[in-house]
């Protein structure tokens, strides 16, 4: 559904003007700030967290936010702020690698299909894409986990598979219009092969499209990871994850709302940040579309 918003191609602008516009874009600035906050929290968590995330303190369980535990403690007396910091790491890593899988497999497939437009190969690739889309993604994720056991890796695979057709379609549709351009025709006349044209002329010009879509898939990946770990798949304890924190807090929401509130907000703000950033980037790359969505 997203390629609807990205069907025209961004022209490249001078870098200086780009930066100036970027700083004036409200979406981009807010989005980038939110995203960076969580990315920073994830990075810091490697070196330092207020408390040990695996350290339990049963006597101190289910404490509301205080000076000692800024976001309170969970049902095992663990510090929620620390858990959210480490959870950011998990969410970001899973979503990032899943986007990576989509790019690594999807982009070449899309370029290849576009280069051979109308051939059997194109047909097979596009039909295979449709077929992947036709599978209910959460069910497949559950099946994958049931087969290989729950882990972060399997969450990545389950989310990543469904990113492949997204990028393949987007790349193909972007590339198709480029193949009509004069400079590509010129390159063909000069005797360059389809593979070389794809890499040298097509790929650089779909990069902006891919960045925008990548940001959106990243945010969808974070939501998907949260959903998977909410139903008990994904990364295993004692490593904290936002979705599992929500699942575990669910029965206590009526007397310890802080336990459900903060992980939920963390997901909401990260996804919001990435989406705003995606919109901002699209506006930036394509001023014609400013304010369009």
């Amino acid at each position, binding site marked *: 559904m997203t390629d609807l918003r990205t069907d025209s191609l961004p022209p490249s602008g001078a870098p200086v003007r780009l930066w100036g516009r970027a700083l004036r874009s409200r979406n981009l600035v807010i989005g980038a700030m939110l995203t960076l906050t969580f990315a920073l929290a994830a990075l810091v968590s490697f070196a330092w967290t207020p408390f040990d995330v*695996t350290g*339990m303190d049963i006597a101190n369980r289910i404490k509301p936010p205080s000076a000692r535990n800024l976001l309170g403690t969970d049902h*095992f007396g663990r510090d929620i702020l620390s858990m959210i910091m480490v959870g950011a790491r998990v969410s970001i890593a899973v979503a990032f690698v899943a986007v990576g899988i989509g790019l690594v497999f999807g982009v070449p497939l899309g370029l290849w299909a576009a280069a051979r437009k109308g051939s059997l190969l194109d047909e097979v690739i596009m039909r295979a894409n449709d077929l992947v889309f036709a599978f209910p993604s959460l069910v497949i994720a559950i099946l994958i986990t049931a087969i290989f056991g729950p882990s972060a890796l399997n969450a990545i695979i389950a989310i990543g598979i469904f990113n492949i057709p997204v990028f393949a379609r987007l790349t193909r549709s972007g590339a198709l219009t480029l193949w009509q351009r004069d400079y590509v025709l010129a390159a063909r006349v000069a005797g360059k092969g389809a593979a070389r044209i794809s890499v040298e002329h097509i790929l650089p010009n779909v990069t902006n499209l891919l960045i925008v879509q990548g940001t959106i898939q990243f945010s969808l990946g974070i939501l998907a990871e949260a959903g998977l770990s909410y139903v*008990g798949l994904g990364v*295993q304890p*004692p490593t904290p994850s936002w979705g599992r924190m929500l699942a575990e807090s669910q*029965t*206590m929401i*009526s*007397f310890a709302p802080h336990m459900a509130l903060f992980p939920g907000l963390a997901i909401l703000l990260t996804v919001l940040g990435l989406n705003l950033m995606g919109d901002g980037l699209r506006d930036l790359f394509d001023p014609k579309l400013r304010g369009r969505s």
Partner: protein
Amino acid sequence: MTFKPLTAGLASVLALSATMALAEKTDLVLGMQLEPPHLDPTSAAAGAIDSVVYSNVFEGLTRFGPDGSVGPGLAQSWDISEDGKTYTFHLAEGVKFHDGTTMDAEDVKFSLDRARAEDSANAQKALFAGIESVEATDPQTVTVMLKNPDGNFLFNMAWGDAVIVAPESIDNIKTTPIGTGAFMFDSWAQGDRIELKKNPEYWGTPAMLDAVTFKFISDPTAAFNAMMAEDLDVFAAFPAPENLPQFDADPRFKVLIGSTEGETILAMNNKMPPLDNVKVREAVAHAINRQDIIDGAMFGYGTPIGTHFAPHHPDYLDLTGLSEYDPEKSKALLAEAGVTTPVKLKMTLPPPSYARRGGEIVAAQLRAVGIEAEIENVEWAQWLETTFRGAHDFGFTIISHTEPLDINIYARPDYYFQYDNPELQKLMEDLSVESDPAKRSEMLKTAQTTIAEDYVNAYLFQLPLHTVAKTGVEGLWINAPTQAADVTGVSWSE
């Protein structure tokens, strides 16, 4: 030797029903976590089947009372021969199945023969293994010959797997159960609820409710919400102990705190190094702080146990002293055993929250003494295949053993924790043929001590049973001697 039925229970039920003649509400909506896969208790292990139909729809020759005692069911009395091998059951008069057919000795013979047949799909086939033959002497009398005397036979016949079914209705029993109980099956909206209605022709004390709806809500939060929104009147085996204080504080509800037969243990793979060394297992036992587990996983509910035996049993020994929380001693034992820490072992955890939460706490406690328990949350299907059966691919697992009086599993060297002690095996063999109560008690105590001193497993707590009900509901079972939600004695007061 003739057994006289206990009538005290019936009398009190009658007294209760007299006070209730004017009560308005005569239906009950009862929530439970698991939906039964089908409704034939004689061909599946699913406890959820018993929860719905045991005593309510189907009855056996004998039945469990709320305190776990075995009393008369369809058999009103029985005679046992001198050698203990022949049981003559005298069936109640005028019993009819819900489809109107008569329940007689032929039905009993059919049911027992079906359960022990070659192609039987009975999940507890061992209960019937001791039967030599079943004869219908006359319509009201059944004679069962045993291969060997068996002190547990009447107990075995009270299980849900031994209820009496009819050949006329057996083909559709899974979807349309036809029994003899005080309630009859009405409808089933799969995935949501099962409705039972009162059996007007019931042979015994009639039920006080006209209709009972069993509603299936697997998610603990949804269970809490449904109770709070008063969508349900009762929740049997409420899954979230953290919510109990809220129900307790709310005048609309009451909380019944009972006990199950479930010994919750940290099972260890006794064949897997380094757990094959008793010193290492002892170190594990001392690394564990039971109170933290009970507080953290069960929110304070649960009785600590030190061996594989239910604390409410008269022969129970408190052996928690053998495995006091002492991390220093634990580290010393590990060093003594020559284990280089950290040692990594896999811990599989099945779905119930006592296992998942308890496992996280245990893992943290073990980590403190240098044992890295790598948690793997698994579904039941995987747990059964990889931990309980097959390759026994686990170091630790947490599980509640809910079968009553099951210490004899320690005499099975192939059982999943793989404890192999010939002395205990001999003891259990002797126990099965011993009939002197004093000697039996002594033997049970020896067995408890043996397994506790061998630190076969780390014994955590007895699993409590929490029932949440609206204040007016009376007559619910507090304890769970077997998995059942017997509503035949339930009524509304006020």
